[in-house]
């Protein structure tokens, strides 16, 4: 099936069920033309950031490794291993590289869980 996305860019868009998310294994979702990376962490929280890695220009963030720096949950890009905050999208470790596609920080999207459905709000992204 091909998911068609409701026309609004300003509302919550359902992308998958919470059960589709395996702890610490990110997935990518297509919300309109925007690729979103979604992560469920071991404390049950769900986070969404842009799937585009600013340092490589490839849509790969969903395939990175989750972790933390201090208390801040993080995601590391699978290409050149930059580390970003999952809370703010801020790039915490640049690995001495310059971003090639916007950035260096990631857009963070608002996530709600409604009745077992994971909902993303692209408008929250910045």
């Amino acid at each position, binding site marked *: *099936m*091909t*998911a068609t996305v409701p026309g609004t860019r300003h509302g919550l868009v359902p*992308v*998958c069920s919470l059960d*589709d998310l*395996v*702890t*610490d*294994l990110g*997935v*990518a*979702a*297509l*919300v309109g*033309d925007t*690729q979103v990376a*979604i992560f469920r*962490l*071991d404390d049950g929280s769900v986070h969404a950031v842009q799937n*585009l890695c600013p340092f*490589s*220009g*490839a*849509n*790969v963030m969903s*395939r*990175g*490794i*989750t*972790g*933390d*720096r*201090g*208390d801040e*949950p*993080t995601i*590391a890009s*699978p*290409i050149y*291993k930059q*580390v970003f905050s999952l809370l703010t999208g801020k790039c915490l470790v640049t690995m001495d590289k310059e971003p*090639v596609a916007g950035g260096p920080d990631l857009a963070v999207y608002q996530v709600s869980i409604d009745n077992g459905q994971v909902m993303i709000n692209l408008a929250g992204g910045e």
Partner: protein
Amino acid sequence: MTDTTRIVVVGGGMVAHRFVEALRARDEDSLFSVTVLAEEPRAPYDRVALTSYFTGRDPEDLALGDPSLWEDPLVTLERDARVVSIDREAQTVTDAHDVVYPYDHLVMATGSYAWTPPTEGADLSGVFVYRTIDDVAALRIFVEERRKELGRPVRGAVIGGGLLGLEAAGALQELGAHSTVIQFADRLMNLQVDEGGGQALARLIEQLGVSVKCDTATQAIKPDKTGRVGRLVFADKGEQLTDVVVFATGVRPRDELGRESGLAIGGRGGIVVDDTCLTDDPHVSAIGEVACIQGACIGLIAPGNTMAEIAVDRLLGGTSTFPGADTAAKLKLLGVDVASFGDAFATTPGSLELTYADPVAGVYKKLVVTDDARTLLGGILVGDASQYASLRPLVGGELGGDPAGWLLPEGSVERPNVELPDEANICSCNNVSAGTIRSAVTEEGCTDLAGVKACTKAGTSCGSCLPLVKKLVGTELEKSGIEVSNALCEHFDLSRAQLFDAIKVAELRTFSEIIERFGTGRGCDLCKPTIGSILASLYNEHVLAADRAALQDTNDRVMANMQKDGTYSVVPRVPGGEIKPEHLILIGEIAKEFDLYTKITGGQRIDMFGARLDQLPSIWTRLVDAGMESGHAYGKSLRTVKSCVGSDWCRFGVQDSVGMAIALEMRYRGLRSPHKIKLGVSGCARECAEARGKDVGVIATDKGWNVYVGGNGGFTPKHAQLLVEDVDDATVFQVIDRYLMFYIRTADRLQRTAPWQEEYEGGLDAIREVVLHDSLGICADLDEHMARHVDTYEDEWKAVLNDPKRLAQFTSFVNAPAEGDPSLAYVEQRGQRRPATPAERANGAVLIAPAQLEVRA
């Protein structure tokens, strides 16, 4: 140039090199220019390592120091410039080409020559000495030619059982010749070791296939019917057939220029110098083996280097004097450790000798101590000289505890822990004291071994003192409060090796248990893949099993290699590089169907690029159905075993290298390790598989296989070093099993075998003890672990294809599983596609739409 003081150095050996290096390093105001007149047609080289010229090292590997020294505008190196006369009146020297060099100060560094006792037949073809690269090259050519002519291994004899004689015997063995050492004295190396040491040494060397004849005087060398060397006749009328003879009967100073120019000559030769290395002419110094200092010529490199430093110091107005020669030596002859230091023969009145001999293990150790058994005077170590670096600096100092602790095998008695005095000489090659090393850390701010080596030169020549230097540096850093951190990351204080042991002992199997027990927080992209790898090494369970998928690094996570645009490349295993035509066709068909870019890899297989995440299962299905499997090109694991075609087809091959390569690849496939591992197998000494550039290289010999370890391409290329020689197939597997498993257990994260082996305490020698002689008592465990790996191997691709849950993760989008990543764009190049550059995307150049997804069950 006219403003500078002109120094001319006669001779281009190691001591001349040291002189120039020290002069340039210390003459900061550029007051001196120096011209080196070398007889040989090459720059100074490492004569001590000459034998390694046979073990596959290139002549360039013998180069000394930084080659840019010879490009310094104040340094001139004249090769092939043998000096024939000195005019001390006019202060000039003249070389064999009649070129005249004026000097303000002359440094004689002509070294010595190999002395041959007057013997009938010493001028026959096939008689050699062992001194220069040219000697060694001529010997090599002669032996190789004779072997071809004779159609059998060449018989060699070495006259002289000292240090050089054993070196030469080792060289003959390397060339595939049999060798017999003929020694006039009652034991081998009679200048360095006593009777017990000589016996142990002879036993060890005979085990390596070298025959030893002591108490034997050679009377004549008789020709065979071709007029070349044929047999030796001894004083007791005994005879021995031989095809080549090497004289290693000692060296004599090359003092003829000194004699002719009227300089004072010592009673047993050598240009007489005082403690400042000055001859009786204030404009002439002599250094190294040609100098007769304190009444004797010394044929060792360390005192020669000391003399070079003193000569430089004096030219620069310093006041240093020769402290007396340290004749301590640690050698490795034919792989046998021999060390002798201090008063090795117990000549001090009242001294006591403590000996330990284990003829089974081939070890002999003796310590000479004062009559109260407290102060170390000297010692001899044969078979195991690992304590040499610790003991030698203690000479003249307190042993600090029961001396037996130094003699008995490690662990049986606690070894005394002694703080070395600052004046203890740690690196005798470069004359570096413990104090100098300590101040490199405390004063110069060096924070690691590499920094200290660069700053002090300690350990940069023979390297035998490196373990001790490392220890001193570590202790000093700790004292200065600088943490020597081996911690993996902020979540684990343990190093990878410590963590490996901890997980193994605690028998933990999940990341959450491990981080709860040994770490803090959630982990990160450093510790998670490390633990994923350790778990895979320990239990050989699927990399995506249980909670492990989230631990795996980029490539392991999907069992393919992520490329720059986020697509993947796929490499099926081609064991040993041998591939059936139908598999070649299949790869071609798959590549066409999915429009994949194809390229032959460096590891003799085929890589298909540009597959999307969601296409991987379909591609694997095609491969697995046809009997192919994962090549682990994505893993920190065994990659490939490269081979040449070997004896089945090749006219020169002596063993079945392809068969061996396939056997090795099937044995170690899927083995997870701290970094990638590559192997190579060559079917003869021509080494077409470039096996010595691999972590493990196996090279065929007439008698079996040689196994080399620790080779590396990549950022810092290294040739693999010999681990064992002429072993059978079963031994090849056994030593590689143990070597790899030991590496897996003890290496740091992302540390390849070459640096691991270099940094492991005691180096390759210590590792060889572990894997061949079970010095840590862990071989049974290593063997069992590897056997478990071999027995439980499964193809990772096939396992995922059979598991719908894991298969579900191979989709582009959770809400659009059938849709490919729309951002991918390609252009055509040389008939295939490649990712479009940002510029090509921007100007809308020819873009190839992503291939349509093919969905398979």
